[in-house]
């Protein structure tokens, strides 16, 4: 893929990168660093993107791989790029049906944040409507294993939600 075309695609799908950053990092600085890392990894892999899958699926694969293997070693900020993106990483509209719904939504998000890195990846893809087969292909496990994991994840989330109440 040509650089120009890649940047256009990335610009159109950058929301995917934001979503993964938000799912994997609580801290605003970490979110920015991870954003940078994912964009960098995608940039490096762009020339090998042949269009066999959708760009969004390819970007999710890279973003999740980068997020899972990403490790923040020191507290020192990587000062190369300042985006100030993270403060805005919250749902924009405030059209909640009730305060209880909003509270439960936020509790569920916090519960998902507490999952392991792989479980978080499965949930992220599930929330984007990917089927178990595709999730399995992206992670390198079978659809059946994804289903088993999803059952466990639901149980874990339920338990975490109960603890929060």
């Amino acid at each position: 893929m040509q650089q120009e075309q890649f940047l256009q695609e990335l610009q159109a799908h950058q929301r995917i990168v934001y979503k993964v950053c938000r799912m994997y990092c609580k801290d605003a600085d970490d979110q920015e660093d991870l954003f940078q890392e994912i964009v960098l990894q995608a940039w490096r892999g762009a020339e090998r993107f042949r269009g066999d899958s959708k760009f969004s699926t390819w970007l999710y694969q890279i973003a999740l791989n980068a997020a899972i293997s990403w490790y923040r070693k020191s507290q020192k900020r990587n000062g190369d790029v300042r985006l100030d993106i993270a403060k805005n990483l919250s749902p924009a509209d405030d059209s909640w049906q009730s305060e209880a719904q909003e509270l439960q939504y936020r509790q569920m998000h916090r519960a998902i944040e507490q999952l392991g890195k792989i479980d978080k990846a499965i949930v992220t893809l599930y929330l984007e409507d990917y089927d178990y087969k595709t999730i399995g292909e992206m992670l390198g496990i079978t659809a059946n294993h994804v289903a088993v994991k999803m059952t466990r994840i639901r149980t874990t989330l339920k338990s975490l939600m109960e603890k929060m109440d």
Partner: protein
Amino acid sequence: MELEDFKALYQKKQLDVPQLNAQELERIARSRGTTAIEKVVRNMRLELLLGALITLAVGIGAFFVEGSIIYHLCAALMIVAVIIQLLIYRPVFARIRSLQHAEVSTTKAWLESLVSFMEKFVRIYTRAMFITTPIAAVIGGGIGFYSGIQDQPDAIMPKEQIDFHNPTDQIMLLVIGTLLLVFVYFGIKWSVKWMYGKPLAQMRAALKELEEDND
């Protein structure tokens, strides 16, 4: 709230995020990476560069010290050490090059290649340090001793003070040697763990998460 309810809401709600333009994204894409692999590559390059610079500095120094066989020996040994280091790290660099194409593989394959690389790197690095540090210490001590026997001006101590038949000196040598070995052993272990231990443990944990259901 069930996960399905959350999903329905999640898909409805949009994140309020700034839309970066192509120029901003390109600037980010050309910045420096922060992954464990990137750190390994940077550390390795720094070590090799420093090694080469020290070799050059010693070589230049030796050139200006006329008639000092000690400095000439030092220069020669440093050059040999750098060559050995380059030979040791050659396969590691080859692996890094192959890893730069792994980012689009499945998560499991990606993690396996990362963990395998990191484990191999840590093993090679630790072994190289365990071998080269004591050798360097023995060679350094030998050169100092040789210099002392030759009564050269760059000797560690004057010739008349060197008496290896004296039990006190023998014990002192033994203690210093043992302390050096202990320091080298634990120092290297600690530094490797400090530099690569946590990212490696995290990647192993993620891989275990993927492998658990296959058992």
